[in-house]
């Protein structure tokens, strides 16, 4: 693996000093930073759409009922550039997803991390609130 220059920290600092005036639709409009959520389930399907990809996860409740959660992730281009491919998460894969719940209360959330059975984390590339995730702002190889 060749040495990479990751401007993660630099860009984090950049963003901290002058937040870009925009991103296409705001986290705060749809999701609640005070409602973190973690689900464990199996992948139902993935929608590779702009501006946000979506991953659908079937989650079995304590009473046995299955609820299909929908998680917003980054635009597919970002995911592709991070190495995701169409078959990266086939239906049936068990995943753990952490994110922030929709304000509507529906089983919809913005995904922060997606963890596969082997422990690998695939960053969602979706919007996360400012100040959250800064702890993770260390250069990764």
């Amino acid at each position, binding site marked *: 693996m060749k040495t990479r220059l990751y401007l993660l920290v630099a860009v984090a600092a950049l963003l901290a000093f002058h937040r870009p005036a925009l991103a296409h*639709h705001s986290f705060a409009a749809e999701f609640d930073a005070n409602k973190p959520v973690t689900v464990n389930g199996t992948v139902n399907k993935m929608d590779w759409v702009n501006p946000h990809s979506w991953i659908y996860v079937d989650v079995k409740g304590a009473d046995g009922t299955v609820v299909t959660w929908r998680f917003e992730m980054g635009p597919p281009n970002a995911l592709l550039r991070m190495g995701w*491919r*169409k078959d990266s998460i086939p239906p049936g894969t068990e995943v753990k997803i952490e994110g922030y719940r929709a304000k509507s209360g529906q089983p919809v959330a913005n995904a922060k991390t997606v963890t596969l059975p082997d422990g690998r984390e695939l960053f969602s590339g979706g919007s996360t609130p400012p100040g959250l995730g800064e702890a993770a702002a260390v250069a990764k190889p």
Partner: protein
Amino acid sequence: MTPKRGPRFKAVLAMFLSVIPAVGQAQTGNIPRGPDGKPDLSGVWQVLNSAAWDLQDHTGALDFPPGQSVVEGGTIPYLPAAAAKQRDNFEHRETDDPAEVTCYLPGVPRATYMPFPFEIIQTPNVIVFSYEFAHARRHVFTDGSPHPAGFPDFWMGDSRGRWEGDTLVVDVTNLDERTWLDRAGNFHSDALHVVARYTPIDASHVMYEATLEDPKVFSRPWKISMPLYRRIDKNVKILEYECVYYLQDKRYGNAKPVGVPQ
């Protein structure tokens, strides 16, 4: 500094003249070429047919111009089940046409024969197609790279091109199944594979041919062909047809919100 009339000056002059359309002069020959000798397709182009309404023979009707088929052999060779789906599409075209009704990106090859101009911007490694309709765009990579493996589908597909003599051959895959081929409900599946050929005839005309192959929908590959006409209007440029915005205004302009975005 190089001498004013040295080889560099002449090369620049030659390149400059090669991309200025010869308005009012004889249009035969004089195909503009780049420094590598390949035809230079740069410029603004548009079709002059009614293929956008229906690729096959069609009679005129209100708001529906007549036209002769651009399909080689006349008709599209649907598999029987697919032919039924096409008829169903046609009956519901006023609500279901993804480009005309929803203003989604029109896909390939439909983007070529929409009744709007498009601009080709040619460089050695990539030829960019910029369409006025919905500011659609696609990149035809001519650097020898293959279609990337494992990529999802795109509305405008993934295009890789190469030259065969004076013909640009473009191979298009990864086409989203939701696009239609025209307003008459002619359609395809996610197995569609298009091979398009652009052959300059003279400075202002390119012959465009596209072979469509889709074993889920058609019984065999079939081909369309039509001329592309260079738009030689003075200072011609691609403007904006922001179909989605106009449609949003029309549909939601007087509506009341019911909930927060999910």
